[in-house]
């Protein structure tokens, strides 16, 4: 799977490089402000900063990262929307900010059309995780525990995962107590501390699972998890919506085509190169690059928008 992704990534870089003659000539008219929708110091933020450093090294652009965290990425999106669309302001967030989060908060008055997606860099190994001491092997053990009358709590970070947990419970006749926590790290902490019985965690469970302290009960993405290939897919347990968020770089709508292509190509080239620090981080923490740009990325975002609307619709019934 990993090598497949890499091949794909390399292929897309080669393909883009062939058509990128105009883009190569593009240079930003000034320093680039990179707004990062995550708290400084975390894996996501480090990933953005390392990409910025490598871009500076390779292209001589000047990039100034800035933390604009809060409200699931919406704060960054609001700041990005009205920024100058000349390639000097870009933002980094989870792709679902532009789909699910914006659809779920119509009062914010934002939509995917206000932005130009540039490139995705990495996907998440989102699993349903429980502490090994529970003795559960798969999600089915949790379901039977619930059916035996145990009240189970389910930790989630953000309303989209809460919707998914709710629908998962509904499809399997379980009424989870859904506990909303601030970020994946907090969910993992709550699982370890026994505050919640299980929760959605997107990759940082790796070491705990390897050590045998945690168990991936199920995969919440559309394929098996790299680390626990035997864990069942939630898609096979009645939940129609996979978690398919990725790290994404975006610009305001109306950015010139050559700027879009130049920045996208540059970012993808950096994360696809395991020799760079950014590439090494993506390999280690996020199971390898998951890149997309241009038309392919537009299609990915449109699909996610449709799926997000359906998820909201289903969860509000």
């Amino acid at each position, binding site marked *: 799977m990993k090598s497949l992704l890499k091949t794909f990534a390399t292929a897309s870089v080669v393909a883009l490089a062939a058509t990128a003659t105009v883009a190569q000539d593009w240079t930003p*008219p*000034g*320093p680039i402000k990179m707004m990062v929708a995550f708290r400084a110091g975390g894996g996501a933020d480090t990933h953005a*900063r390392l990409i910025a450093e490598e871009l*500076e090294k390779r292209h001589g652009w*000047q990039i*100034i*990262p*800035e933390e604009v965290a809060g409200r699931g990425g919406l704060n960054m999106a609001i700041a990005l929307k009205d920024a*100058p669309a000349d390639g*000097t302001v870009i933002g980094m967030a989870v792709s679902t900010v532009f789909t699910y989060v914006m659809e779920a908060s119509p009062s914010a008055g934002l939509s995917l059309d206000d932005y130009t997606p540039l490139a995705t860099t990495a996907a998440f190994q989102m699993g349903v995780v429980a502490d090994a001491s529970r003795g559960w092997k798969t999600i089915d053990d949790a379901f039977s525990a619930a059916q035996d009358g145990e009240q189970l709590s389910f930790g989630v970070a953000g309303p989209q995962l*809460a*919707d998914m947990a*709710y629908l998962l419970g509904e499809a399997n006749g379980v*009424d989870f*107590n*859904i506990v*909303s926590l601030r970020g994946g790290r907090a969910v993992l902490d709550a699982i370890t501390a026994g505050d919640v019985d299980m929760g959605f965690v997107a990759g940082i469970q790796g070491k705990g699972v390897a050590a045998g302290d945690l168990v991936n009960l199920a995969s919440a993405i559309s394929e098996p998890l790299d680390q626990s290939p035997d864990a069942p897919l939630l898609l096979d347990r009645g939940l129609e919506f996979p978690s398919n968020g990725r790290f994404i770089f975006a610009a305001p709508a109306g950015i010139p085509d050559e700027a879009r292509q130049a920045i996208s190509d540059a970012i993808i080239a950096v994360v696809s190169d395991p020799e760079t620090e950014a590439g090494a981080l993506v390999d280690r923490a996020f199971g390898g690059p998951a890149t997309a740009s241009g038309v392919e990325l537009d299609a990915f975002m449109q699909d996610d928008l449709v799926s997000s609307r359906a998820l909201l619709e289903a*969860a509000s019934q």
Partner: protein
Amino acid sequence: MSLSRDQKIGAFFLLFAVLLVFVWVPLDVDSGYTVQVRRQVSVGDAFAPTIAGVFVLIGGLFLLVFGGTRDEPQEPIDFLALRFAGLLFAVYVLSFMMMLFVGPIAVLVSNLLTGMEQEYRLLRDAAPWKYLGFAVGCTFAITSTISLLEGRFSLRAVLIGLCAVLAMIAIYDLPFDDLLLPPNGDV
């Protein structure tokens, strides 16, 4: 009946708490004390601010009711000092306003002189432009404050202001690529 100072403080915060709980929170918070999402009742956004209001309310009420029983002499409020403090705050507000405008105005003037079409936003990380606003605002603030405190204007105050500017540039700007001095993060 005249109220003691503590009673007045109590009355003020009592009123504040009542306004907070019955006006501000209902008008400026989207959800109620509890909300029903996904068939589960959970705590809404109005709950915690109301708790905050209750703390203020109890404290204010207690001060109002019992705050007058203290006979201990209270130091009178020094209104001259209050006004001086207001002046100091005004200096700092003004100095940061200057930081916002000096750079762009300098670019405008330079454009008029040279006929170029430069934009401060794109020059915000290029010397000397990036230092202009900070240097002017910072020197102004430090010079004025020293002068106010000493009751006279002196060249020494200006020099100290300039030295402080250089020191802060040396701490925050020179060693780090990604740190921005005021006002360069806002443009």
